[in-house]
């Protein structure tokens, strides 16, 4: 499906299909949903199986589960402060869901649900709605002073307030686009290099096979890079959520 003639079809990998055969088709269960369920099952499985032993000296799986937990927990406390404990379950869910989505997407034939703006957009909206609700709960109507920095001249209010509101509203957009663009770009690059290999091999015969080693090496290197990006983007999403929650709780 990759290369017909000289065209590279790099985007067909993001097309939604149906999962689970006929049953999935009749209820519109997509291949993205399949991987989401798999990610959720893996996360729950990791935590359940990892923590079942409750060993004093953790085994490998328990160490992984504990490290995972500690990592997100410390991130919450460091960024939000003591109140961060309240938001830990949310941030942990978000981080693990995105991380597993990014990582599962790197397997062949697996759909990368974080490469869809609908998914990342929904997650970012969830974050921003939560942040706004938290800010309103903590500060009531005082929250709206957030849009007008203390000490700014009153005369500039008609200019500053719309700009601050727009800046606030652009948070979910930038949050979702960053994750979506990173994942999409990485997977398009995989596809493009893989297409180069097929094109070289079909067009040039034996010499092409040798030359196809170039894109292959690039793809191998890219896989390492994408592993980094998969982790980093989940981290960035989670830490920005924490920073926004910090702003909501402390209202600078």
């Amino acid at each position, binding site marked *: 499906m990759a290369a017909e003639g000289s065209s590279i079809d790099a985007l067909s990998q993001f097309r939604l299909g149906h999962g689970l055969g006929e049953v999935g088709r009749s209820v519109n269960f997509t291949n993205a949903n399949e991987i989401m369920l798999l990610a959720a099952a893996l996360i729950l499985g990791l935590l359940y199986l990892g923590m079942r032993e409750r060993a004093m000296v953790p085994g490998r799986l328990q160490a992984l589960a504990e490290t995972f937990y500690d990592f997100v927990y410390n991130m919450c406390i460091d960024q939000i402060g003591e109140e961060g404990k309240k938001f830990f379950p949310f941030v942990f869910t978000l981080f693990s869901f995105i991380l597993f989505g990014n990582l599962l997407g790197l397997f062949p034939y697996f759909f990368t649900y974080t490469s869809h703006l609908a998914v990342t957009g929904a997650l970012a909206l969830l974050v921003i709605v939560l942040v706004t609700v938290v800010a309103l709960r903590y500060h009531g109507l005082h929250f709206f*002073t957030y849009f007008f920095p203390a000490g700014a001249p009153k005369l500039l209010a008609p200019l500053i307030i719309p700009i601050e509101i727009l800046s606030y509203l*652009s948070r979910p*957009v930038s949050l979702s686009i*960053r994750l979506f663009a990173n994942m999409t770009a990485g997977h398009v690059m995989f596809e493009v290099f893989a297409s180069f290999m097929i094109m070289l091999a079909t067009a040039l015969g034996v010499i092409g096979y040798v030359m196809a080693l170039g894109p292959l090496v690039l793809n191998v290197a890219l896989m390492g890079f994408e592993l980094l990006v998969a982790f980093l983007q989940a981290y960035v999403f989670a*830490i920005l959520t924490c920073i926004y929650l910090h702003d909501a709780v402390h209202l*600078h």
Partner: protein
Amino acid sequence: MPEDEQDEASFERRLAAARERHGLDAKPKAAGKDDPLPFNPFALMFRVGVELVSALAVGVAIGYGLDHWLGTQPLFLALFVVLGGAAGVLNVWRLVGPRPERDPPKAGRK
């Protein structure tokens, strides 16, 4: 047992010194001073671009929506494009500008 206690104190001291020497104990870091996001010029460039574009996109969307609703075709679009661009610059300034101190000193700022 003062001798024992002394031994223990000296042991703790020597242990701490040894751990320090090998860098085993994390230094107590100044709270909120470190930039939580990894610094990497390429990633920073990408983030700046995304911030600029997303604020502008929100501005365009709001302006277009208001125009569509009120039937004042180019007025709000023109206004909100400018405001969106300004909000984008504000986002970038928040990203790269000096960070306001976080938690500890809250004096003077709400």
